[in-house]
């Protein structure tokens, strides 16, 4: 059946900010959906609150709304745009939930909007645990014994029925948030409490434990003619008990015979039919008892998911694109398989001739108080995927692609007790401890009993370890070509081999090249070479035949950002995609290198050629050798490619844009200081210390408080503010390894300073200021964590001009070619340069959305040699409206973590609010971030001394707005003195009832809590923030944030939505 002609315009809901459990895979699916539907001639309207997405680019949809994803905002958009249909399956749980809200509030019915791709009934049936289980019983499939509970009493009754361990899953939460496994009553009660809180419907599913069972996922697509195809079967190496998002997974399934696989295939299709997914992609999860093959259905998602992004990348089958086309009426056989150039239809099942491994990346180093044991609640922040011809190769490529400092199965420990502990209670590094277990010759059966990982995988790991051990005492020169080839075929990186052989990776590479031991590139073609493909989607392997077939065209290669992590995520992928798109438009052949399956950049049709490869020196050099690009862009993918810049250059790779030497000049404190000095610009007093003694001496000179951090980091890793020498000593002892090669930077901390970000482009001749962003939180909060406004909401024009002048001076001095970002702090009208990054920054997509200037594209063209003038880019855009960026945090996922903001970045994502005034934009940014600002009720204020004058001013406004004031003793005193009515509340140490009691009892509507940076003060006030987080009470931990909130609340008006394309610039 061809596409529907009764539809003309379609609204797509995006997934909102990047959070744990919902990352850039939904940008990937959203982009595919937009492109697919526009290709069919539909008018596409898009809402997403996340400015760092490609899908919110004005070219991606006919009308783009960067607005909070709440049903009220969507209704406004529907009123304006009058779409015929709503496609809710591309934006993860966020979009599905929003669609359900729209249905519940009668919005779709009222405006005659058809829900396509999923029905309310199907969503309900799939998401509601009880209904799902009943549905499974109806079609003769087993599920785990379980029951639903809506209260602690009910929960305990269910538990009595199923025993321990019990699995608790709250309904309607992202990434299983709030769930867990309980082995005893105490744990059970704790998890249930949290789960009831987390579930918007206060509903828990409590299940019999199938921990240790084998876990599988099936990616299924169905069309309206009931044609069903399986795109991919994914097997989890980590058995049941670890969330699939946190599991190492492999495609295709490895340990099933055909009979078992087909049984699962039949069941998957039966599930889609029963749930009523009429068109689109879904994923169905299964557990299999390894003892007897008993199969149970775990759950299904009636939408594209993280797994479908993985499956798309793993097979080359674009699930979201096809799902979008099915939603408008096509059937699978009417659609072509792009990868074979349409030679074959989309109605087939991809078959692959390689092994795909996905390994999650965690960020527990950012949240030291968080429990880092893996459970049914997802905790990872990113993932890497690797393709190899064998599991060995695929796994080892994935490990080096993680960029966590490992080159393979690096040794962790020889302590048997630690190993046993880590094997039985998995944390983020279990795989490496398994390798250690084999190294220490723990019996195989014990390792298997502790991990319950299928022996097939364990033996593969053991085999790699034995190969490593066999190298003991060997030397590079004495390894035969055959031996070395075998090792490379097993995926050992040059660096890992170097480590094992006691040489460096350059020696291994040289030896390899001498032996002509080079990787070949095979194609991902969906069909295991049964049909010819022209699509250049490739991976490296050590085989005989190379299929790269490089051209002689003029090529630019873009190095991507690798796995998402805190501090490096979708923003950089956005930049890489823009570079590829712009240069492709300019007739360059573009080559993308990346290993993050969630991204748009790893979509094979974004660039002319895609190498799905780890971003290590070895892997990149081999690709460069085969492709011989005219230029390589390392400045767009964050630290990942930047770290490689110097060595790439040293190996003759033509890096375009700002030179690695100048990048180093900006990163190297001493060189940078000299440059600023030459330019007559100021910097906070600082020092680069190469040992603890130096640091302590310098600290006395500069004076406390100090910002301390290791050099070469992104995301403020290990950055701290220290107030006294005791703190500094501890920092040097515990937080960093300081050495000549990795010195520690000390900067005077500027109290009460305003921080400003400037993004600019320099072409060697003229500067284009992209945007000036005034931070809302004061200096000291990591720029990635603070909200900011473009244009500035309080900086005088003269000050802005001064910032422009300084930016230009530095651009010239650093011979910037392309993007640069400057962070300034302004203290009492004095401008300090905090840092300069002559590369793409996190704020580029936000600025681009706020100004309409595609900065990353413009800069990419500058890097390729076009001037700004030639591009017609001269004037800075000063928008007539405000855009506020707000950060989004993962605190709810990490019970026990302090929510206070500081110099170490903790946010995972961002949202943007647009308004005619700063207040409007700010309040919308809060709404988009899920922060509810109250209209009435009690506001609790507890601030540090320095903030008291400001707190009084804010409190006065709150009183005017009709809120009643509550404050802790010191703050209350200040408020009373100012003549404000206030009720004094006990601090926790002051006896009960205290502040936390009130929060827990739901008596507080808003909390403003600022503390001095002293560790003791932070510790004392922790319980307030913790209680606020648990009770979902809105809180601000900076006075500036509170001020902005207050302004927003005072100027509250009816929610208005703005179409990006119509905003007057």
């Amino acid at each position, binding site marked *: 059946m061809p596409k529907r002609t009764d539809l003309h315009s379609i609204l797509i809901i995006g997934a909102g900010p990047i959070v744990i459990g919902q990352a850039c895979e939904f940008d990937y699916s959203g982009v595919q959906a937009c492109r697919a539907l526009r290709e069919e001639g539909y008018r596409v309207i898009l809402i997403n609150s996340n400015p760092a997405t490609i899908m919110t680019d004005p070219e991606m949809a006919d009308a783009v709304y960067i607005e909070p994803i709440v049903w009220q905002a969507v209704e406004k958009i529907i009123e304006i745009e009058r779409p015929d249909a709503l496609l809710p399956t591309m934006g993860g749980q966020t979009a599905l939930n929003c669609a359900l809200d729209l249905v519940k509030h009668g919005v779709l019915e009222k405006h005659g909007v058809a829900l396509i791709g999923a029905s309310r009934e199907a969503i309900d049936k799939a998401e509601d645990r009880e209904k799902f289980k009943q549905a499974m019983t109806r079609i003769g499939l087993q599920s785990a014994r379980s029951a639903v509970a809506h209260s602690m009493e009910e929960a305990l009754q269910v538990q009595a029925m199923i025993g321990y361990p019990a699995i608790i899953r709250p309904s309607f939460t992202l990434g299983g948030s709030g769930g867990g496994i309980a082995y005893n009553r105490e744990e059970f009660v704790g998890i249930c409490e949290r789960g009831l809180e987390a579930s918007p419907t206060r509903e828990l599913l409590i299940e019999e434990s199938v921990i240790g069972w084998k876990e599988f996922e099936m990616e299924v697509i169905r069309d309206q*003619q*009931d*044609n069903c*195809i*399986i795109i991919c079967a994914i097997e989890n190496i980590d058995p049941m008990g670890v969330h699939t998002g946190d599991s190492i997974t492999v495609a*295709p*399934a*490895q*340990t*099933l*015979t*055909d*009979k*078992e*696989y*087909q*049984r699962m*295939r039949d069941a998957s299709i039966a599930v889609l039919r029963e749930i009523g997914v009429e068109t689109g992609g879904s994923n169905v999860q299964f557990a299999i008892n*390894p*003892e*007897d*093959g*008993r*199969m149970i259905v775990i759950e299904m998602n009636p939408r594209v998911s993280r797994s479908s992004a993985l499956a798309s990348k793993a097979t080359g089958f674009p699930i979201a694109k096809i799902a979008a086309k099915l939603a408008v009426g096509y*059937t*699978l*056989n009417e659609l072509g398989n792009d990868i074979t150039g349409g030679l*074959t*239809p989309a*109605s*087939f*099942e*991809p*078959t*692959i*001739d390689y*092994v795909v491994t996905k390994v999650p990346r965690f960020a527990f180093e950012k949240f030291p108080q968080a429990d880092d044991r893996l459970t049914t609640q997802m905790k990872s922040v990113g993932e890497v995927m690797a393709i190899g*011809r*064998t*599991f060995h190769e695929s796994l080892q490529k994935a490990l080096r692609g993680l960029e966590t400092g490992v080159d393979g199965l690096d040794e962790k420990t020889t302590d048997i007790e630690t190993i046993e502990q880590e094997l039985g209670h998995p944390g983020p590094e279990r795989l490496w401890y398994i390798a250690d277990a084999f190294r220490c010759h723990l019996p195989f059966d014990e390792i298997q009993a502790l991990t319950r990982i*299928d*022996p*097939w995988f364990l*033996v*593969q790991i053991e*085999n790699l370890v034995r190969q490593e051990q066999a190298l003991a005492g060997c030397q590079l020169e004495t390894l035969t070509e*055959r*031996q070395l080839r*075998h090792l490379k075929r097993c995926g050992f990186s040059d660096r890992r081999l170097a480590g094992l052989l006691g040489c460096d990776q350059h020696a291994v590479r040289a030896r390899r090249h001498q032996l002509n031991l080079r990787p070949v590139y*095979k194609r991902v073609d969906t*069909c*295991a*070479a*049964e*049909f*010819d493909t022209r699509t250049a989607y490739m991976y490296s392997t050590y*085989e*005989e*035949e190379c*299929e790269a077939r490089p051209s002689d065209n003029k090529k630019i290669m873009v190095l991507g950002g690798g796995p998402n992590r805190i501090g490096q995520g979708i923003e950089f992928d956005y930049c890489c995609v823009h570079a590829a798109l712009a240069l492709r438009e300019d007739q360059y052949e573009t080559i993308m290198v990346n290993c993050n399956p969630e991204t748009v950049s790893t979509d094979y049709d974004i660039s002319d050629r895609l190498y799905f490869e780890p971003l290590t020196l070895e892997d990149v050099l081999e690709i460069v050798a085969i492709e011989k690009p005219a230029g390589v862009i390392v400045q767009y993918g964050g630290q990942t490619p930047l770290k490689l810049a110097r060595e790439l250059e040293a190996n003759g790779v033509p890096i375009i844009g700002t030179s690695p030497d100048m990048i180093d000049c900006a990163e190297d404190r001493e060189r940078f200081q000299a440059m600023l000095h030459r330019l007559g610009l100021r910097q906070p007093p600082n020092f680069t210390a190469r040992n603890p003694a130096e640091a302590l001496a310098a600290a006395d000179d500069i004076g406390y408080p100090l910002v301390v951090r290791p050099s070469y980091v992104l995301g403020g890793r290990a950055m701290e503010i220290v107030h006294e020498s005791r703190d500094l000593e501890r920092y040097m002892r515990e937080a960093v390894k300081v050495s000549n090669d990795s010195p520690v930077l000390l900067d005077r901390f500027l109290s009460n300073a305003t921080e400003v970000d400037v993004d600019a482009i320099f072409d060697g001749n003229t500067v284009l200021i992209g945007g000036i962003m005034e931070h809302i939180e004061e200096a000291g909060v990591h720029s990635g964590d603070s909200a900011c406004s473009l244009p500035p909401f309080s900086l005088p024009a003269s000050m802005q001009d001064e910032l422009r002048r300084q930016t230009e001076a530095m651009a010239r001095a650093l011979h910037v070619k392309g993007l640069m970002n400057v962070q300034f702090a302004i203290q009492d009208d004095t401008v300090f340069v905090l840092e300069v990054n002559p590369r793409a920054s996190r704020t580029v997509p936000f600025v681009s959305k706020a100004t309409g200037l595609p900065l990353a594209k413009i800069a990419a063209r500058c890097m390729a040699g076009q001037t700004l003038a030639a591009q017609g880019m001269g004037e800075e855009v000063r928008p007539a409206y405000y855009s506020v960026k707000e950060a989004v945090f993962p605190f709810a996922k990490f019970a026990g973590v302090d929510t206070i903001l500081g110099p170490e970045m903790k946010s995972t994502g961002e949202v943007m609010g647009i308004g005619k005034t700063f207040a409007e934009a700010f309040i919308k940014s809060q709404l988009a971030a899920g922060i509810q600002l109250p209209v009435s009720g009690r506001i609790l204020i507890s601030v540090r001394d320095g903030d008291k004058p400001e707190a009084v001013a804010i409190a006065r406004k709150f009183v005017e707005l009709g809120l009643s004031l509550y404050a802790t003793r010191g703050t209350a005193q200040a408020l009373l003195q100012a003549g404000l009515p206030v009720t004094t509340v006990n601090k926790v140490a002051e006896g009960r009832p205290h502040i936390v009691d009130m929060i827990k009892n739901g008596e507080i509507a808003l909390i403003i809590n600022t503390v001095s940076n002293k560790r003791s003060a932070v510790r004392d006030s922790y319980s307030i923030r913790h209680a606020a987080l648990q009770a979902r009470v809105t809180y601000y931990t900076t006075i500036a944030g509170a001020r902005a909130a207050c302004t927003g609340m005072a100027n509250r008006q009816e929610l208005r939505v703005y179409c990006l394309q119509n905003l007057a610039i």
Partner: protein
Amino acid sequence: MSDHPRALLVLADGTIFYGDAIGAEGITTGEVAFNTAMTGYQEILTDPSYCRQIVTLTYPHIGNTGTNPEDIESTTGSTVHAAGLVIRDLPPVFSNWRSRQSLPDFLKQHGVIAIAGIDTRKLTRILREKGAQAGCLMAGNVDEAEALRQAQAFPGLAGMDLARVVSCEQPWTFDEGEWTGTTGYRAPGDSRFRVAVLDFGVKRTILRKLVARGCRVTVYPARTSADALLAAQPDGVLLSNGPGDPEPCEYAIATTRVLLDKQVPLFGICLGHQILALAIGARTIKMKFGHHGANHPVQDIDNARVMITSQNHGFAVDGDTLPGNARVTHSSLFDSSLQGFELTDRPAFCFQGHPEASPGPHDVDYLFDRFIRHMAQHRA
């Protein structure tokens, strides 16, 4: 590093692949064919249709789940029918709750020569571009020149009557139902129909599908005459799958003609489909590299629905030569080749792919139900 003996595969075009011998030692020749199914190596190896074919599996890890007595497809004679096996990687262990024996032990036990460690994707690419070709697999003592000589001496499958090689010699009965989902097969229920299966190399799963639907199944040698079959008064006759070229199977074509005349319900699968086509005067052709996989989309013309099917054939019926009383029921969405037809004046139909799957998806399972319906209608 490998401790396996050396092995090599030489194609008739002179391409040589070196690898490890993971099965029996010795020498074997055959037509080299690739199969893209990711599961089901044991079923493939034991499928009589692979007689005289050296199979390369495109999925790199083969042997993951070992082998077990339940997944053997052959019914008579040798357990393994494939002439040899070519894979990229044999994993160090097998793991599955049903497995009883490792793949290498299984191969050795059944005297199958197999090579691992070669660039199977390159091999597949060669076969795709140049078409299926003869090859020689040598394990243990290898001799390139001798292997090439033998590869080039292999006459090719065209004109080869292999059905007679793999068929049973005496009629026998079968009474095993479908797989239970964990282990073992169901016992047969009450039988309502008597089905005669003409064995050109029948797979066990075909027989199970019939038993599960209430058939009492008797398997007959390929050369059984129509008279002998009719004497048993079957409700229907199934023309089974099998290896090689259908054209030389004149005996079976003749038998089929008689059965058609007698209005006996007929169901042809794979080679059986080709034999039915030849019996009604259509032609068959040798394909470039055939269809071997478990992901082939086939459209059911009657309702336009897409079935993902298991396929394994190197010969095909030329759809243009079908007579007027044949109505096309199924067509390949990969290459538009004929995948099934039925006769408008006889209770006979057939399918080129494998409705019994094993390995492969169960989407065309319904054809067995159609056969049952035909038998029921015919009886009524």
